C-alpha cells in the first residue's frame, strides 16, 4: 500500500518535472535564433528557470525512488537495479513512453508567436497549479512549487505582454498569433483532465484539483486575449495522452537531441 502511493507520488513528480524539462528544452532552441538579442536572452532565461524546476523535481523523484525498499527498474534502459538512481537517469535514460509531460509542451517551437502563446498558456496554468501545490502536504513538492512561483509570475507577465504586442500589432503579427491560437488551443484541455496519479495525489492532499483550475486559467487567458484583440476559440478536438506516456513523434525528436550525449557516453561526468 505504502509502495503504491509512493509510486504515484513519483509519477506525479515526474509529470511536473517532464512538463518543465520539455518546454525548457523547446524554448532553448531559440538560443542564437531569437528575433532580437534581448528576446533571445529572455526566452533562454525562461528555459533556464524551467530546467532548474525540472532538476528540483527529478532530484526529488530520485530520492523517493532510492528510498523504496525494493528497487524496480523504474528507469527504462538502466539494467543495473542495484545502483541508486539520479536526476540524470530520469532526464537521459527514459524513452518517450516513460515521459509524462502534456502534449502542448512537446510541439515544435514554431514561429515567435507560437512560442510566446504557448508560454502564456503554460505559465498561466503553472501559476494556478503551483499556487495550490505550495500548500501541498508533501513538503518538498510545496517547497519546489513555492520557489518556482516568483519565476513563473515573471514569465507570465513577460509572455502576456508579448501576446498583446503581437495581437495588437501589425496585420502580420496579428495573423500569426491567431494562427498560433488555432494550432495550440486543442492541446490546452489536457492540462485540466486529471489522470490517475493526479487524482490520487489530490485525494491524499499532496496534489491539486486541476479541473477546478480551468476557470481561473481561462479568466487569466481571456484578460490577455481581450487586451490583445484576440478571441478565445470555441471548443476544439482534444489532444491528450501525454500525461500517461502517449506522445507525438515530436517528443522522440527532442529526446534524440537531449539524450544523445549522455547515451553516447553514459560514464561521462559533468
Amino acid at each position: 500500500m505504502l509502495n503504491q502511493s509512493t509510486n504515484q507520488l513519483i509519477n506525479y513528480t515526474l509529470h511536473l518535472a517532464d512538463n518543465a524539462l520539455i518546454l525548457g528544452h523547446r524554448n532553448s532552441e531559440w538560443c542564437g535564433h531569437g528575433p532580437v538579442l534581448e528576446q533571445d536572452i529572455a526566452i533562454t532565461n525562461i528555459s533556464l528557470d524551467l530546467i532548474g524546476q525540472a532538476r528540483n523535481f527529478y532530484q526529488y523523484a530520485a530520492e523517493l525512488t532510492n528510498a523504496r525498499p525494493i528497487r524496480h527498474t523504474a528507469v527504462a534502459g538502466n539494467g543495473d537495479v542495484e545502483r541508486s538512481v539520479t536526476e540524470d537517469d530520469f532526464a537521459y535514460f527514459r524513452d518517450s513512453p516513460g515521459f509524462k509531460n502534456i502534449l502542448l509542451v512537446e510541439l515544435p517551437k514554431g514561429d515567435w508567436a507560437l512560442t510566446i502563446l504557448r508560454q502564456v498558456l503554460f505559465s498561466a496554468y503553472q501559476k494556478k497549479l503551483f499556487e495550490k501545490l505550495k500548500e501541498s502536504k508533501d513538503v518538498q513538492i510545496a517547497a519546489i512549487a513555492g520557489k518556482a512561483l516568483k519565476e513563473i509570475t515573471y514569465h507570465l507577465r513577460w509572455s502576456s505582454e508579448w501576446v498583446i504586442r503581437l495581437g495588437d500589432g501589425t496585420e502580420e503579427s496579428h495573423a500569426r498569433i491567431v494562427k498560433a491560437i488555432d494550432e495550440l488551443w486543442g492541446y490546452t484541455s489536457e492540462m485540466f483532465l486529471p489522470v490517475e496519479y493526479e487524482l490520487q495525489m489530490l485525494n491524499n492532499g499532496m496534489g491539486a484539483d486541476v479541473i477546478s483550475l480551468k476557470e481561473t486559467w481561462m479568466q487569466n487567458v481571456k484578460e490577455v486575449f481581450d487586451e490583445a484583440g484576440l478571441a478565445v476559440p470555441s471548443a476544439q478536438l482534444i489532444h491528450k495522452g501525454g500525461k500517461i506516456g502517449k506522445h507525438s513523434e515530436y517528443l522522440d525528436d527532442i529526446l534524440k537531441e537531449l539524450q544523445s550525449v549522455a547515451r553516447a557516453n553514459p560514464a561521462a561526468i559533468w
Partner: protein
Amino acid sequence: MVAANKISVDTIWRILKDIPDPEVPVLSVLDLGIVRDVIIHKDTAEVIITPTYSGCPAMDVIRVNIKMALLENGFKDVKITTILSPAWTTDWMSEEGKQKLKSYGIAPPNPVQQVCNKDLFAAQEAVQCPQCNSYHTHRISEFGSTACKALFQCDDCKEPFDYFKCH
C-alpha cells in the same frame, strides 16, 4: 563541547565571508543571503544554502567551493544541504552587498518587490544608474546576463548597466 562547537560555527561563518559568488564575484555567498544556517553535528559541519533561482547554474560551483574552503581549513566531514523553502528573496542581500554591487557597476535591487506586480505593462520601477546616480533610466530587457539580472540603460550618461532585479 558546546564552547568548541560555537568556535567552529563562528569560524565557518568567517570562512564563508570570503567565498565569492562565481557569477557576481564582488559578492560573497553571505552578501547574497544564500547561506541559511551553519550547524555542527557530532563530527560533521553542515552548511545550509538556498538557490537564488531554481535554475541558477552557479549553485553547483558554490556547493563545491564551500566544501573545498572548509576542507582546506581543517574541517574533515563537510555536508552542504540545499533547501528551497523559504524561497530566497533579494531582501536577504546584505546592505554591504548592495553597496559592493553598486561600486561594481551593477544596480542593487530596489527595496520594493516589483516583480510581484503582475500588472501588464506596469509602470517601470525607477532604477538608479550605478555610474552617475541618475534616475533617468529605462529598461532594455527584463532578462539579462544571468537569471538574477535585468538590462537597463541610463538616459543621462547613456551607459547600459545590469540591474540585480527584485525577487
